[in-house]
């Protein structure tokens, strides 16, 4: 959405909401300053299962049991 599209709706806001909007945007600019290479408000994913010690050993044991002949 462009500023030109937003502006008519923004201009219809009550004066108090316009002031709130100005404050919110100013705070956003303040806190967003110079955080590259991050992007403000973006979600970053950490999919690795951390601290799962023992899982690798258990998995290998399970695989060996599966591989062994079972008469």
């Amino acid at each position, binding site marked *: 959405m462009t500023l030109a599209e937003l502006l008519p709706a923004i201009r219809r806001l009550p004066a108090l909401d316009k002031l709130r909007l100005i404050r919110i945007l100013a*705070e956003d600019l*303040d*806190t*967003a300053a110079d*955080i*590259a*290479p*991050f*992007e*403000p*408000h*973006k*979600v*970053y*994913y*950490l*999919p*690795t*299962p*951390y*601290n799962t*010690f*023992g899982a*690798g*050993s258990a*998995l*290998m044991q399970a695989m060996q049991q599966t591989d062994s002949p079972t008469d």
Partner: protein
Amino acid sequence: MRFPYSTTDPAQDAFDSLPRLPLRLRADSRALDVMGLVDSGAMVNVLPYDVGLQLGVVWDERRANIRLAGTLGQQQAMPVFMIAEIADFAPVRLAFAWVQSPDAPLILGQTNFFMEFEVCFYRSSLEFEVKPKSSI
């Protein structure tokens, strides 16, 4: 330069060995030696809360404007920037998502550790190689 996979507890075995990289972090006049988990699956570097505190960083809720999701749960994070010294490589500036979670390990992820260094894993020989990115 090659580094060994390592464990963090004598009770752990080779299956628990992970690529942990020794590095020195500097912020202002403070320095701290830490171990970072080299994690190609992590989108960002992550700084544990206590490490940030030891380096003199002050949590500011208004600046915690990025979000983490995944196995550490959903949480807000504050971008912080440190100078990292690794082996005899030239120091680099790393960007960390600083979290308040006490369980978070120090993670070296795609942004921006993997942007600064080339990494090769040799898991069968329990080693990994790190070298500065090529200056093309």
